[in-house]
């Protein structure tokens, strides 16, 4: 094992210092407790893209659920016991004619309740500016070539809605159960920058 230099002094960055100062003040003034902050952090870590994958797999296997999901994403998530507070969820469906992709050009709005903490690239200036400007080039960099005949719909989540892409169910998955299907649904396929895994892919 490589020896790690744990003893070296690392000065706090401006924002780290601001976070620590604010947190200590809030605790000192009795507005929140350390335990509440720790619980919130744990809760946030517990949200993973597996939640979104469950929603997608249910929609793939249950046509009436899919209809409800596209009609009102927030309510349909509640049906699965997924609480999405303060989140007006809009689910957009990929079809052979339409490919959807999500971005937030103003900041980094993301359906955290269903996908967890966003990847760094989602928050990067490059993704946020280029995804609306040249989506086909950006998708190609993710390894996704969208044919000219397929319409690209980019959703810029600038205000109160949050978006989730419902990818197309991969071929060769006939008769598969929800759990097996959910394992094919990746985070990136629900952002719209890639497709679900191929059914032949080893886990």
């Amino acid at each position: 094992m490589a020896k790690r230099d744990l003893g070296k002094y690392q000065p706090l960055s401006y924002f780290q210092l601001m976070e620590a100062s604010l947190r200590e003040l809030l605790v000192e003034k009795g507005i929140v407790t350390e335990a509440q902050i720790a619980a919130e952090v744990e809760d946030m870590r517990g949200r993973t893209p597996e939640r979104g994958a469950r929603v997608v797999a249910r929609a793939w296997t249950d046509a009436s659920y899919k209809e409800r999901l596209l009609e009102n994403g927030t309510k349909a998530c509640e049906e699965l016991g997924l609480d999405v507070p303060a989140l007006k969820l809009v689910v957009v469906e990929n079809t052979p004619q339409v490919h959807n992709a999500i971005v937030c050009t103003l900041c980094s709005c993301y359906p955290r309740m269903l996908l967890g903490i966003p990847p760094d690239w989602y928050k990067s200036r490059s993704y946020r500016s280029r995804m609306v400007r040249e989506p086909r080039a950006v998708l190609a960099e993710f390894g996704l070539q969208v044919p000219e005949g397929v319409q690209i719909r980019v959703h810029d989540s600038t205000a109160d809605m949050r978006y989730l892409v419902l990818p197309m169910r991969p071929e060769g998955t006939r008769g598969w159960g929800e759990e097996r299907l959910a394992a094919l649904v990746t985070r990136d396929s629900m952002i719209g920058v890639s497709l679900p895994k191929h059914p032949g892919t080893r886990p």
Partner: protein
Amino acid sequence: MIPPRFKTGDRVRVMKSYPPGHLRTPYYIRGCEGEVERLCGAFPNPEELAQMRDGLPAQPLYRVRFRQSEVWPDYRGAAADVVEIEIYQHWLEPA
């Protein structure tokens, strides 16, 4: 809540306005013309919320669909490609 002025399918134009302060109307879409995809509901005005006011009455919020080829004159991609953006009613006028 302010009553909605537009319905799905209406042609609208985003105001070409550059006020100071916190805005949720992206710069690149101001002055562009699109079509109302849906009414999302009504939400407190974020520009007011940012000034520590209550943002009420709530502003209707729409998802508006724009043709990429009209947003970016040099857009390289299919003519059918679109971008959909949430815009508050006070930024929209009939086109």
